[in-house]
């Protein structure tokens, strides 16, 4: 029997990020993006949640994912998803041991005197990421498609389409919250094609950033 703990994902929009957001009342977009993020990350099966399990039926890591928007200038979900993936790919799980009382204890790498305790993880390790999802938000307007809109463009137009594909080309989610422009097959296919191109660009970008950080 294995127990998994699902990550809690929160997207915050403090007043710092936009003139529209004032203290006291949370921004309307915040829970929407949080929900979209949760759905996307769980649907993509990007991580094996078993990796967060430590001792069967007793202990597991709980991962909190907090995303803070510092400057809202459109396509918030795209930015939030990219930052979530970057953070998860940078995540390091510390090595731990279980002592005689059955409690979990952090193990220092240099601590030779704690060898009596049986390590559960023998070394720091990273999460294994399988197919990584990336997203692209577009605006449909008459016969045109606007990729990666700014906040000003978003406030004027009413029809948004968000396509999420993973690195193996699978469609993870498609999100079109109403709007007067109908989503014809050809328009959706065009958006998916743009997203496919975007996935390659972002994947390269992420690889470079991670490589630069590890050196």
């Amino acid at each position, binding site marked *: 029997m294995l127990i998994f703990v699902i990550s809690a994902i929160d997207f915050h929009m403090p*007043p*710092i*990020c936009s*003139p529209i957001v*004032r203290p006291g009342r949370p921004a309307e977009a915040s829970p929407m993006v949080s929900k979209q993020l949760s759905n996307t990350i769980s649907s993509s099966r990007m991580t094996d949640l078993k990796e967060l399990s430590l001792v069967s039926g007793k202990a597991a890591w709980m991962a*909190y994912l907090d995303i*803070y928007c510092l*400057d809202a200038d459109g396509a918030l979900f795209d930015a939030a998803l990219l930052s979530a993936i970057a953070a998860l790919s940078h995540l390091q799980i510390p090595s731990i041991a279980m002592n005689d009382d059955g409690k979990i204890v952090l193990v220092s790498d240099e601590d030779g005197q704690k060898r009596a305790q049986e390590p559960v993880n023998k070394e720091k390790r990273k999460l294994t990421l399988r197919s990584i999802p990336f997203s692209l938000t577009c605006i449909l307007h008459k016969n045109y498609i606007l990729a990666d809109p700014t906040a000003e463009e978003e406030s004027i137009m009413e029809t948004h389409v968000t396509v999420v594909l993973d690195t193996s080309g699978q469609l993870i989610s498609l999100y079109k919250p109403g709007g007067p422009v109908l989503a014809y097959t050809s328009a959706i296919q065009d958006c998916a094609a743009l997203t496919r191109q975007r996935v390659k660009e972002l994947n390269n970008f992420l690889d470079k950033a991670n490589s630069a950080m590890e050196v």
Partner: protein
Amino acid sequence: MVGLSLGETHFIQGGIAQDLRCDGRKRLTYRPISVETGVIPQTNGSARVRMGATDVIASVKAELGKPSLLQPDKGKVSIYIDCSSTAEPAFEGRGGDELAAELSNALQHCLLGGKSGEGAGIDLSSLIVVEGKICWDLYIDGLVVSSDGNLLDALGAAIKAALSNTGIPRVEVAAGTSNDEHPEVDVSDEEFLQFDTSRVPVIVTLTKVGRHYIVDATSEEESQMSSGVSISVNRQGHICGITKRGGVGLDPSIILDMISVAKHVSEQLINKLDSEIASAEADEES
């Protein structure tokens, strides 16, 4: 932060008693301070300040509004602080609200002066466009990104830097408007006015640990504090505000000592901060 063991608490207290803290600092030495300006492009002004592992962002947004009836010749300024849950797991959900409110109130008192507007770090009269009718409303927002003690000093420094970075659009008032009508205004996209921030004070927090007090306490040192006094001092050496926290009372002579020390420390802090802000602005322009 995991709880400290008995040996660790003794080590911290002993270090402070001997004027050699865990990271090698003396009692009245700040951690390295770095300033970055213009970090949030959509605001009128913004800055990021790091003191050791403490990391805060401040931004200033300006909107045209109507002056208060009580003070028709002055603009309005409000300060709001948000504690990010990335700074500390305890801030998850509403955990950071109490601390954020405390920080907001302390900064409000230290930087904005009393209800009359006297003693404010900013000349509120400079925010007037048309007296009694149109003024600039400033919204100062702070975000705590990483928390390792001494948030109040870091936020005060970040707000000072953000105000230095702030550009207010020039406003032309159309001539020939009757006094009874709402004036027509034209807001420039290219011309900006900058604030005189020479009167904006810095905040120096003195944290009492054992029989001594220290500046720029880390969160571990703050966990050993009996009380703390935050004093805001401007360039002229005037005290603009004092707040105290922590449950233990202080002898008045110690508070007077603290004020004197804060005044002395603030001179170095202001000079350091002003040079950091100047170089950050220069970096941004290049």
